[in-house]
């Protein structure tokens, strides 16, 4: 009998408290809306994108970092930054390019013996199983210096960079085939495949584009 009694009291108290806090919550909200010049739609939009402290996003976005030569990671729907991953460019926070292990990765991106410490990253691609993203690997291309880098999504670090030996620039990468058997990389500006001088008069004969299929080992990082 006593416990039932307490239960009823609890309910009533709860109900009263709920109404009061709603009313006071409502006026606090209206004050914020007034102070910041927000309308009801704005507030709904804010609520759709707001993550209270400790709440995680439903999606993770890997964005090319353009001329920074890096990859930018952020969350959706909060649109808040999570990480910059050093890829073609040294990144001091992660020691990328300042310790020997990462220097060895960047050194794989040398072209004809020359260090190239920046990149124009364009198209990130996620590895696939049955045409669906499997969350294992991320590939990204460098348009300026035809290269593809592989990032391991188990620790978000760049593990490998490969240089296309025949293209002089590229664009249409990095697209995984449906079971990540290959990564497609297409050239951008036509240029001679070899490393010699050719007259522009010989454009039709010696300047070429192409598509490279990089064999990808889904288990190991070997292109």
């Amino acid at each position, binding site marked *: 009998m006593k416990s039932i009694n307490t239960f009823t009291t609890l309910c009533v108290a*709860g109900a009263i408290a709920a109404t009061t806090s709603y009313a006071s919550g409502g006026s606090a909200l209206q004050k914020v809306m007034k102070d910041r010049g927000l309308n009801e739609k704005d507030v709904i939009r804010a609520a759709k994108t707001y993550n209270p402290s400790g709440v995680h996003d439903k999606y993770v976005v890997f964005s090319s970092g353009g001329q920074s030569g890096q990859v930018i990671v952020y969350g959706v729907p909060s649109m808040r930054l999570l990480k910059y991953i050093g890829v073609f460019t040294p990144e001091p926070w992660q020691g990328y390019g300042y310790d020997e292990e990462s220097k060895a990765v960047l050194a794989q991106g040398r072209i004809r013996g020359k260090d190239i410490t920046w990149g124009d990253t364009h198209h990130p691609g996620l590895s696939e199983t049955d*045409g669906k993203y499997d969350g294992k690997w991320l590939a990204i291309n460098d348009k300026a210096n035809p290269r593809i880098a592989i990032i391991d999504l188990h620790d978000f670090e760049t593990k490998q960079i490969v240089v296309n030996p025949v293209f002089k620039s590229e664009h249409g990468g990095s697209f995984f085939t*449906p079971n990540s058997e290959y990564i497609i990389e297409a050239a951008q500006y036509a240029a001679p495949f*070899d490393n010699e001088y050719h007259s522009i008069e010989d454009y039709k004969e010696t300047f070429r584009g192409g598509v490279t299929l990089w064999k990808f080992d889904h288990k190991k990082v070997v292109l």
Partner: protein
Amino acid sequence: MQDLSDAGKGYSNGWGFTNSFNTEMYTGGIEEGLPPNEAGMSRNDTDFMHVYNWKKLAELAKNKKNYKLVNGHKVIPISVAVANDALFLIPEPKSPHGVDVSPDGKYITVCGKLDTHASVYSMEKIKALIKKKDYLGKDPYGINILDMKKALHGQVELGLGPLHNQYSNVDGEIYTSLYVDSQVVKWNYKTLKVIDKINVHYNIGHLCGMEGKSADPQGDYIIALNKLTIDRFVQVGPLHPQNHQLIDISGKKMDMLVDMPLPLGEPHQAVAIRTSKLHTAVRYKMGTNTKTGKTHKGKTLAGQERIERKGNQVTVYATLVRSHINPERITVNLGDEVTIYMTNLERAQDETHGFTVDNYNVHASLEPGETSTVKFVADREGVFPYYCTEFCSALHLEMMGYLMVKDPNKKYVSATKLKMKTMTKAELQAEYDKVVAVNAATDAVIQSVVAFLKANGFDKYPDVANLVTDAFDQYGQIPAQKKKADAAKKAGDMEKAILFEGMIWQYMVKTADVGIRAKDNLVKHISTKQSAAAARGDIAFDEGGCSGCHVVGKVSSGPDLTGVLGRHENGEKWVAEFIKHPEKKFNEPYVKAMIDYFKLRMPNQHMSDAEIKDIVEYFKWIDENANLF
């Protein structure tokens, strides 16, 4: 010249698609009075989509007679690809950008930025044309051309400057970016109907759907990756950040939710994946070279730290753990080649250590378990501090050491030693006793936490169990230090004994820090769920300043409030009244006694009636879980 590509999937698995431009083969020459590239390269109405069978090409590349080696790279000539039916061309609107295969692989949508239409090609039709060898002709290099009209499913007028496409979870639904119009258009590539348009700011390039180019697109959102920002953000100089705009596509009409400035380069394309599909690690197996995934040859465990010398090669095997770098002094000769292998011995989540040697342009970030290397020639004489660059603990500042670079050809005269004030024997004994007493008290706290954790089955909750493991890792370091402290005491070196006892305290504080976090987590797991009112009361208790004087489960600046409702006749009413107007009860004998004890009158915190009601509910919840505090 080539542009974007996509791999076929499902129905088109095995095929690849790549756009091209400059079928005119124009080569510019402004400097010779010729029209510029942009004019010559977009003269024709159509360019060519390249359709190739990568499975066949991969087979062909296995036989030496099918390829040429150029710069050590296998290149299959056009003639071989054509002869094996592995490469075709289909006209497409000029200067194309996106070529995007539908989730089932049956349709390929191409956008040419100089055409207002999107062109949807049917893979079924393409395959049929190839099978019948129904070609329109050949290009100058002998590649068979398929008839655009026969390969098309249809075309749709979308607007100015269509670029790229993404798919959603709705069958036939596709989203296309319009660069010139600054819009995203939602349409159906099967029925070829436009459904909705939304303005973006400004000049969108790529767009990113949620897994929007996979066989399993999720819908929910589209992100517009805009090329221009203009007035969207606070002005930060002539170079503007980029603007990624999040669009809600779950409703009938698209709704622009929020802008995100991106201040790092001009991002071109982005891909999104469900968070639940990512399985990232928080630590490495001890001694991992993270770039190869293998055990690092420089892996060093506690007790294995050393400096090895071979001629002018100096190799340091170092460890980092809160809060020291071992070794703390590295002395080398000018010109030595120095290699420092470092292992972060931590296992606690997020306990990264950074490492640098000042003025030597090296830096490493060592995540728990990682081993990495810095290498340099000690080419400048002097003293160079090295330190941990991550704020890793309360004693982070002290996590440092010195690289001393000596010139072997120089004679150094020792400066007069600064005599430290020496302590008397009695003073040393007093300090030693104090340190030992503090350690005993700290250990008592640890033991009470351990007893609580064990009594409440901590090992059933992985997050708690992990913290407990980390805490014991710290605690396990103590016996070795104790041995050294006792040995020093026995040898009469009290100074040293105090230092080692101090080290024990360091480990205890770290243990307690993690242990108490484990306890808090465990309480959350095992306590009864708070009612909405109790949860509000919990917040009101903190925000009303109550927790500044009252610690639940402990007597602090005010009494322990566990059980307070039962301490008074008509407890709920009494407590509510007391919180509302403590001053009205200061003359009650009970309160009087407390005022004497605490030497403090509880202040009126001006709580509302509703807040007081909630706090009383919170007190009830505390009483239900009294054993946990």
